[in-house]
């Protein structure tokens, strides 16, 4: 299927207080999510990510703008769209006293699933998200990681063509976060679905997403592949020199191509536009010191995030 999974044009949203005072959370958002893509929505807290993902999933409505989800005009086809998508929320919650398998059964029924189709979907997802041992545990007794896995299992129940994940690794320990990212990747590969992923974990976005949009104060400030964003912003490469002795870092700043420098105890961090051209000039300035180690690293999405969030 070649159509885009999401096509949004001019989406605006504001929340009004009881007295009618409004605060605009999304301003004229236009973007497309390609079929089969993992698309990242990145941005600091309060940038409008959750509101945007909630609008895309038809949970809430925009004030203005138009959307096509899976090729269907969103206003006229909400029910059809909802049957083909699903959502896993940040800090997932389910009715407390339902067990894992009862929760999945309840939500499967809400999607109109029945009989062997429902029971095999429950079993498959319990196995896929490694919840066999917890299937008879009540939601209130699950750990944060298990709740997150249950939320993902629920999101996959109806075999959605488009999946919305709102901070799927928030609150998880590093091991569980890595496991969850692997599960997302596996689900994406095996089931060939499109995923819109909300996160402020830049490493996660870089690992999973083929395209990302940065939101700041309700606006898309950048939209491209992670690599293109790093190139476009000319963030430079980071050179870290560990040394003993004295060096005039003011002189380092004068070297062509040096974008920034930071003097830290026992090391200097230098951001270079083109490391290869000027590395020798910089190292000459450290000639009187004892260099212990040199590390050069590519900029990552964290650097893009910090640059864009400024």
């Amino acid at each position, binding site marked *: 299927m070649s159509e885009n999974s999401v096509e949004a044009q001019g989406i605006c*949203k504001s*929340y*009004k207080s009881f007295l009618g005072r409004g605060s605009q959370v999304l301003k004229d958002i236009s973007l497309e999510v390609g079929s089969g893509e993992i698309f990242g929505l990145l941005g600091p807290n309060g940038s409008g990510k*959750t*509101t945007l993902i*909630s609008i895309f*999933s*038809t*949970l*809430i*409505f925009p*004030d203005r703008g138009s959307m096509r989800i899976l090729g269907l005009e969103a206003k006229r086809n909400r*029910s*059809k769209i*909802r*049957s083909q*998508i*699903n*959502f896993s*929320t940040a800090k997932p*919650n*389910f*009715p*407390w*006293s*339902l067990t894992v398998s*009862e929760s999945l*059964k*309840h*939500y*499967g*029924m*809400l*999607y*109109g*699933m*029945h*009989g062997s189709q*429902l029971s095999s979907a429950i079993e498959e997802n319990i196995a896929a998200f490694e919840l066999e041992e917890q299937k008879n545990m*009540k*939601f209130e007794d699950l750990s944060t990681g298990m709740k997150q896995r249950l939320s993902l299992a*629920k999101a996959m129940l109806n075999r959605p063509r488009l999946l919305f994940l709102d901070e799927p690794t928030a609150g998880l320990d590093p091991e569980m976060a890595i496991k969850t990212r692997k599960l997302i990747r596996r689900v994406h590969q095996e089931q060939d679905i499109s995923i819109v992923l909300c996160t402020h974990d830049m490493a996660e976005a870089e690992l999973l997403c083929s395209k990302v949009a940065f939101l700041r104060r309700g606006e898309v400030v950048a939209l491209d592949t992670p690599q293109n964003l790093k190139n476009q912003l000319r963030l430079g490469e980071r050179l870290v020199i560990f040394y003993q002795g004295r060096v005039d870092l003011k002189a380092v700043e004068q070297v062509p191509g040096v974008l920034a420098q930071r003097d830290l105890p026992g090391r200097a961090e230098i951001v270079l536009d083109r490391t290869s051209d000027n590395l020798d000039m910089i190292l000459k300035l450290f000639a009187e010191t004892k260099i212990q180690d040199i590390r050069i690293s590519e900029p990552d999405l964290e650097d893009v995030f910090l640059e864009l969030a400024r």
Partner: protein
Amino acid sequence: MSWRGELNKYLASAYKNWIISKRNAFTLFELFFWPMISLFSIGLLTKFLQVSQEMSSYLIIGAISLTLLQVAQIDVAYVLLFDMWSKSIKNTFIAPVQSYHLVFGALIFGIVRGAIVFAILVVVSRYLFGFNFLAGGAMPVLIFLAGVFATAAFIGMTVCISILTFGQKADVAAWSLSGLILLVCGIYYPVEILPEPMQAVARVVPLTYFLEYYRSIFIPGSHNVMMGAGLALLYLALGLILLDGSIERARKTGILLRLSE
């Protein structure tokens, strides 16, 4: 979608309410404790006041009606209350379900629970207070119960509408609206003794007509059960339209997100 899939969308709410109720010890209070307290207090009052058999029937019918109304309406309201309390409302409204799936699914469970409570109260009132609820035959009982459950569905929907409009604090409506019904629609006294404006309110509540109908079997009097049935159908339709409207509004204002936080 197949008819079984469609049926499951209704049964989903009944299934959830059933599981939550069976794991909650306080369900026993809703099913046995409060209904018994209500019936016993009214039954004993009739003995103390040495009222006539007719008056005793009048009051016991009122007590049983109010209890059934409370049990069934809270089950309809629970369809949203349980989601709101557990902050899982997003998961319900992201699914391809309509308001009528949720309301009628929950009502199915409310009717089952109401029927259990009714059976218990009928037996107790027969043996302890000498009142035979089934004296008029099965059909009048079914008509009367249909009226009570339809009124309960409308009250339950009103609770859901209040929550979706005003937020979490509006859950108090779940326990207060049936109190209003107690006041205006002649549970323990004829509506004629109410002040004129309240009588007008009583005349637009279907339960008023169903109570008059059922009491006419035991105490001769006039009734207009067709009016009650018409109002009940009108309110069911109106309730669904208003509930749809409040869901749409909650999606526009974003209250659905706030109810999940």
